[in-house]
């Protein structure tokens, strides 16, 4: 279970958001939505242990995330969370395979079969040797998704996964994320202001920031 308690965040004394509370049970989904600039990406960073909140706690089951030492947070993120960033955060000079292998290395995974299965499912198996900088936005998105599922995460976070995609690609990417979450029994926390997504996926919880 993911529990978010009284989460607040301020920059230079100005509150971006405050007192956010929610709970997501195992294998349930949460949609976080709201207008641009409201702090959705910041909230995702906080939930993933990349940014300390000003106040509040985050619990993953019994673990209070920000009570962990920074190295332990890094380890936890690698082992339990999968993140698809809005701008993908792939290493552009590496090939698709190398980007995925980095994630494998971070988790000390020796088995490459899972990586090839993922590449097969995202439809990039025959392009695994291609450098990321040469890929289309849709392809980069699929690499980012494959990388997020390398460690069979319990929680998957997606930040605006469809913001720069057309309708066909949006449909395909959302189905892909959903399928992979079901395969690994992961909870999905998706951040978007894209109205199309709500019609494509039924979320168990919706959190509207800025209300």
């Amino acid at each position: 279970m993911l529990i978010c308690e009284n989460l607040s965040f301020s920059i230079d004394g100005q509150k971006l958001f405050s007192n956010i509370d929610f709970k997501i049970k195992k294998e349930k989904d949460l949609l976080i939505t709201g207008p641009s600039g409201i702090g959705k990406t910041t909230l995702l960073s906080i939930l993933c242990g990349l940014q300390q909140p000003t106040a509040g706690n985050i619990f993953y089951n019994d673990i209070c995330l920000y009570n962990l030492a920074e190295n332990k947070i890094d380890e936890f993120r690698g082992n339990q969370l999968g993140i698809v960033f809005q701008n993908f955060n792939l290493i552009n000079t590496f090939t698709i395979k190398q980007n995925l292998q980095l994630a494998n290395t971070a988790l000390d995974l020796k088995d490459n079969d899972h990586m090839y299965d993922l590449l097969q499912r995202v439809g990039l198996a025959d392009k695994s040797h291609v450098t990321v900088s040469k890929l289309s936005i849709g392809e980069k998105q699929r690499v980012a998704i494959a990388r997020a599922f390398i460690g069979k995460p319990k929680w998957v976070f997606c930040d605006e996964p469809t913001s720069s995609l057309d309708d066909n690609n949006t449909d395909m990417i959302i189905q892909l994320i959903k399928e992979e979450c079901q395969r690994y029994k992961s909870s999905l926390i998706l951040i978007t202001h894209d109205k199309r997504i709500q019609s494509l996926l039924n979320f168990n919880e919706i959190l509207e920031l800025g209300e």
Partner: protein
Amino acid sequence: MILGMTVITVSILVNQITKDTFKKNNPNLDVVIGAKGSPLQLILSSIHHIDIPTGNINYKNAKKIMKHPAIKFGVPISLGDNFQNFRIVGTDKSFFKLYNAKLKLGSIWDKPMQSVIGSNVANFTHLKIDKFFVGSHGLVDTGDVHSEQPYKVVGILKKTGTILDNLIITNLDSVWSLHSNEDLSLKNNNNLEVTALLLKYKNKTSAFSFPRLINKNTNMQAASPNLEISKLFKITGEAHKVIDYLSMLIISLSFAGILFTLLNNINERKYDIAILRTLGFTKIKIFSITLIEGMTISFLGSFIGLLFGGIIYKTIEFFSLLGKNIVTNQFDFIYELLTMWFVILIISFLACLLPCLKVYKQNIRNTLLNS
């Protein structure tokens, strides 16, 4: 790093090996008697066989000195000829005892114009037992030969690790016989000459009075090998210091180079490093990777420098006449080289810490946002 390490390696090798060679070449001789001139020249020519002799001394007078009550024993030597740049030394059989020399093949001479050769001479010149060779005038090969009286090789010495390995030893009569054809005065026994007299005292206290006695009362000079060589090293030591300071400067610049290269690499790759953190690489892991990168650069750089230094030293040794006199089977320098290498690696480690700490303190979210 490579350049600095190369210079310092050559400096250490030259310094250490020449010191060891000078030490090993002197079989604990206390004093050398020779013609007046530079005492250092006398020592270098008669013990280390590098320089030219200061002149000759009368053999009759030399024998008187050998019988002096302060002297335990003495060995006369006569220089003047060479074979393929290896010096021919006329002496008596006690010369071999000085170096604890043992025969590998053959025997010591029993008549004039027979010779015993050192192991390096045998290897370089391919002379063998019963083979003849002709000595040439002077101490370097000039082509001006004593073809009328060839030497016969009767013995080959085992390697001693001293200058003896580079000498051709014959008896005094051979040298006198060769040169009496040119200088008829040598036919008279009273006019026989030797180049120097290598002496040991009965008692070390004679070191104060005996040289003064010779220098004041005769037309000869007495020189102490240890004193002259330590004077020489005092002079060359200053030059070595300058070279060492220069190499230290180069090495310091290379430390700065490593530091700035790493800092630059980190700046260029800070986005990639932040990505690694999002994937679960811990701060400590990233710190270690950066440290390993820096240390690999300095390890390889310094190792290649060591290798180049060794190669350059060997090349100098091979092409120099002095090199032939250097005894290369000594490894005392290894300790000094390894210590220096270790110190350099420690400083490299410290230089790498700064960029590593920068990586350690990196704010991932800000880096990802700013990218």
